[in-house]
């Protein structure tokens, strides 16, 4: 039900945006035509799925176990997401090397419960390989951040 509602909202958003553009002028479809077509498909199918979901709920066919399955393991997923967001937030300020070392250390030691030896070996190897591959081989200027004066 919630996914159908989310998709319905998305479809209505696209339809709203499409109608603000020109849909048709004279004999020609304009820039709003295709998005409006897609929006109609999304809205219609989402409504259909929503009606089906509501009918299912009403007929009491939903098993209570499904809810528990949804929450099991969610903690790990949220940990991954939070750490990735922190990586994004720190990358420009702290630089690639510091941010990557911290990220890999926390992920391997805390989240994946590896030993300090494994964390240090894999972490340093990954950072060094990543730095070498992207900076020297592919010439991608990774942010230097706090180590700018040393690099």
């Amino acid at each position, binding site marked *: 039900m919630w*996914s159908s509602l989310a*998709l319905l909202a*998305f*479809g209505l958003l*696209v339809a709203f*945006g499409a109608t603000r*553009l020109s849909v*048709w002028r*004279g*004999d*020609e*479809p*304009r*820039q*709003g*035509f*295709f*998005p409006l077509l*897609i*929006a109609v*498909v*999304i809205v219609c*199918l*989402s409504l*259909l*799925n929503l009606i089906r979901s509501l009918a299912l709920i009403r007929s009491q066919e939903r098993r209570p176990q499904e809810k528990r399955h*949804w929450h*099991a*393991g*969610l903690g*790990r*997923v949220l940990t*991954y*997401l939070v750490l*990735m*967001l922190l*990586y*994004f937030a720190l*990358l*420009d300020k702290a630089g690639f090397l510091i941010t*990557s070392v911290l*990220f*890999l250390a926390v*992920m*391997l030691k805390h*989240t*994946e*419960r*590896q030993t300090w030896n*494994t964390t240090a070996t*894999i972490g340093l190897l*990954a950072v060094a390989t*990543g730095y070498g591959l*992207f900076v020297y081989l*592919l*010439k*991608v*200027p*990774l*942010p230097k951040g706090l180590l700018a004066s040393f690099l």
Partner: protein
Amino acid sequence: MIDNLVMGFGVSLSFQNLIYCFAGCFLGTVVGVLPGLGPVATIAMLLTLTYKLDVTSSIIMLSGIYYGAQYGGTITSVLLKIPGEASTVVTVIEGYEMAQQGKAGKALGIAAFGSFIAGTIGTIILSLLAPPLSELALKFGPPEYTSLMLLGLTLVIYLGSKSISKAILMGAVGLALGVVGLDPVSSYERFTFGSQSLTDGIDMAILAMGLFGIGEILYMAEAASSRSSPYRVKCPDTLRELLPDRQDWKRSLKPIGRGSILGFLLGILPGGGAVIASFASYALEKKLTLYPQDFGKGAIEGVAGPESANNAAASGAFVPLLTLGIPSNVVMALLVGAFMIHGVTPGPFMLKEQPQVFWGIITSMYIGNMILLVLNVPLIKFFVKIIEVPYAILSVLIVFICLIGAYSIHNNSVDILLMIIFGALGYVMRKFEYEPAPLMLAFIIGPLLEKSLRQSLIMEQGNPMIFITSPISAGLLLVTALFVFSPLLMKLIKSQRAAVLLQQVRKSASEAD
């Protein structure tokens, strides 16, 4: 044709392209061995690297990952009872049984040789079919292209998805995401919300890495505790153990031949591909075998046929991509994206305007198949070792590669944020059983579809009858309609049959009274 092949080999046998072909095949085999990490996620992650390479080298490497993964998946299917790829699920049935009887080497050997033969046959047919198909495609105008892309999308949705309504929805969402940026006809800005970064649209590599890379990792991270340790049988020690004997070849040659043709034909179909090809081949061999009692107990035909079919299908999948510019599955859609990164449009004009790219890619597949045979026969023990790397470490490394990869596209950390958002979306989609493949395919062909649709309507002053008056377009739309309405038709036929049956039962009941 010989001249074209000579030109192609001139390109693919260059030192740089040989290295990239080897890298792609090696990576593909590694990826095929690792369950959970498929060629789609790997290609998505490596798209960012291809920004720095030339177009031919990029496609050669990415293609190598695709057909290499078919080889790699077999190793774990036979030795560990774990299908490395969806297309090697059926190999578990007979391959693992053979391994338990001490014939792991023969199973792996026949799979490797069969894959090589089928891959080569597939590439030869591709070389023969591509030029005339490209000539035919030159006759396609905007209405024909619109109908063809619609058919392609429909087939991917109907043949490759568990829930059709969910797959259609994902396709529509993909089309909607493809609309962000500049209008392909009038270059008008749409859905950019004033953001400069969105003027060029959502980056395909970011979306792919998010949905398939990060999304998959998040989904697997959730299931981490329930992962069980694999079964294991003895890995072949010597090269001799891997060589099939005369009897094995006698039983396998025809299945390899049939699998090659069947696989290639199914690979051409959008939504078809290696998975359907392997299952279809298994079913065919089971019907045609002279040794039906062996099936389910280690029949070598049950390995030779499907393994050949999945590799031939990988070659077949290149036909619509290279000749028409239409991707037949998600991997091909990512390759379309890789072409576009370099400003090259795959399709009939590529053969005319950039024949060295076209033939370079085709000839690299001959070389790739040889490399894979050489890699797979002696290096099996090495590849089996890879699966011993804890998934916990692999998942962290994959996330790390995706993070740097996302940044490296435009040297902008906002791309990392976008990738994380798409990753979360990919995870949620998997939880609610929405498949990301139709979304990705629709996202990539959406702008092409819109362009040809609007051009068709502009040509006929807004009259949609142009799609019916063109015979090719009408034929393609008819096939599309058949697929769209076939579930409804089947339901109608079944309910009519049920009504007739009920009437007969009532009649005989009343007569009995």
